[in-house]
């Protein structure tokens, strides 16, 4: 009796300790970068020397942070376009492949998931060589295409999970009531899998926003991307604005996540 209680206790202790370590590793960096961004000092150092919002003020200053703003705008544009393209293509692919068990459907399914496994640096280099071969020059549009390819698996996964939970009898009922395929898709399929599509779109947006490896190869002189600019600032000047940018990114993603959690149960979608 006594030994079992001791066993239970040490078991809980071990699990609790592991959880605490995991939590520290996950949350620690976020807390540190957030605190650092509010430093009064002139360098990225933890713990910060005093608190102020000077770096945020500098970051939002239109003239002195013009390059960061332009990179951020580029990144948002690319992320937005990538999200739309990946969502449309990924949804179409998952709807077409849902419940098909044929050899070709399986092969295509695997094929679309490839970008998730393929090392992104290799893909970035390949894309650059391919586009150059086609006579195209690095541009925002090429980055959008590159990003779309590597983030499609996110949309495909969440949408396919929703599709597999869609009861076939609903589609059959709709057909027996006289609805065409497209009418069924618009009024039954789409509303039922919308949470999966939205979750996938969110993931695609975030994945594009902080993509470095693909952007690195496809960035041209006029298409500076935010993560790459941040890396450049870190390398050259240890600019504290990098921490401030991180702070803004973390805060916006957090807000978006909370909104989506309320709307579509985001974390539940990602677990499926």
């Amino acid at each position: 009796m006594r030994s079992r209680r001791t066993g239970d206790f040490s078991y809980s202790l071990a699990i609790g300790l592991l959880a605490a370590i995991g939590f520290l590793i996950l949350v620690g960096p976020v807390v540190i970068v957030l605190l650092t961004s509010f430093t009064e000092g002139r360098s990225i150092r933890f713990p910060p020397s005093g608190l102020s919002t000077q770096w945020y003020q500098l970051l939002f200053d239109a003239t002195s942070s013009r390059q960061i703003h332009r990179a951020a705008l580029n990144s948002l544009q690319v992320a937005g376009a990538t999200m739309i393209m990946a969502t449309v293509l990924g949804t179409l692919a998952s709807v077409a492949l849902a419940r098909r068990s044929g050899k070709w459907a399986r092969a295509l399914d695997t094929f679309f998931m490839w970008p998730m496994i393929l090392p992104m640096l290799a893909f970035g280099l390949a894309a650059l060589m391919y586009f150059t071969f086609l006579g195209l020059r690095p541009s925002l549009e090429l980055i959008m295409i590159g990003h779309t390819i590597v983030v499609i698996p996110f949309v495909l996964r969440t949408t396919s999970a929703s599709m597999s939970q869609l009861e076939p009898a609903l589609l059959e009922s709709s057909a027996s009531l006289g609805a065409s395929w497209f009418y069924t898709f618009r009024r039954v399929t789409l509303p039922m899998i919308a949470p999966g599509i939205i979750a996938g779109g969110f993931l695609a947006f975030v994945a594009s926003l902080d993509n470095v490896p693909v952007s690195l190869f496809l960035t041209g002189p006029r298409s500076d991307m935010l993560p790459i600019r941040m890396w450049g600032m870190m390398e050259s000047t240890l600019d504290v604005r990098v921490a401030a940018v991180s702070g803004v990114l973390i805060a916006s993603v957090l807000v978006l996540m909370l909104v989506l959690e309320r709307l579509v149960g985001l974390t539940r979608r990602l677990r499926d």
Partner: protein
Amino acid sequence: MLGDILPNKPSSKGGQVPTRSADPSISVRGHTVDLDAVTHRYGTLTAVADVSLTVRAGEIVALLGPSGCGKTTLLRLVAGFLRQSAGSVRIDGKPIDALPANQRNVGIVFQNYALFPHMTVADNIAYGLQAHGRPRDDVRKTVERFLEVVRLGEFRDRLPRQLSGGQQQRVALARALAVEPTVLLLDEPFSALDKSLRLDMQIEIKRLQRQFGLTAILVTHDQDEAMSIADRIAVMNQGRVEQFDTPINVYDRPATLFVTGFIGTTNLLRGKTLHSSNGTTTIALDAGVQLAIASERHFAPGTPILLSARPEQLHLYGEASADRWPVRRRFALPIGPNTMHDLETRDGATLKIVEQRIGAIVDATGEAWCGLRTEARPSLFESSSQP
């Protein structure tokens, strides 16, 4: 649709259209369904084997059988969710084989109702009408009418998950009926309901079917359900129809040994025929008796047979007689007003007999004699036809 339902030719007097019921706009006349040598294979497995049957206009036919007998496959073939490997399905004599499910105008109610979970009750009922592109005003009126038909007016704005099982089923019925289908298909419609609710819904479906003169095909594995609701029952086994007849005939005149075993309980006694003439076959049972049985079938002398007798067709006696055979009573169970006796014959067969217990307490064990009741008509089968 309405043009098909109502004779539209003006009559000789004043162009008045004859009507079928008080509310002609929702009356649907039944249509016939013909299955003609329908076969369906999944790969090498034959799910439906050469099934031919005719469902008359305004009739409820139950497809009854154990799971895997092909009854659901048959229903899905009629609905158009599957395309048969061979044979033809006709509605009102017209083949519908080439039509996809959404052009067959066949209503279906699924076991789990398959209501659209993101739509209200009213939207669910409106769905088919909207898919047909009916004018908005027409849709609204029809939805109102069908909400009334299934008595769910006050639930119009609820979502399916806020309804009980019985209410959900009524929505599913209203949704299917609103588009005026030629045939209503019911896939195990009562199996998800509580026992107490089942009878209510069976009455409800019967009521709707009468009201609209609907032709309906019901798939079920529950013989009581089939017996109570269907006009005729097609008993299916291994993809074939073993018997297609009225509930009473299926019970009293089973066509095959499978039917006799699947519908109700029965006692099987081994023996062989002695001679057969003028609709009477004399048999010698291994249990030790000779009996003359009325039978339409002719058996050659010496054919090994099985006598199938329902528990209520047998009677227990205290003394021997020429048409009784000895049994050993093993135990007796009181079942309501009846007593069920469990008996063993001399050749080791087990018999179940149900007798009314009119006050007397019957001795539960010991020797007794068993015989057929005078009006009983048991069935005879060649024992090689045993499954």
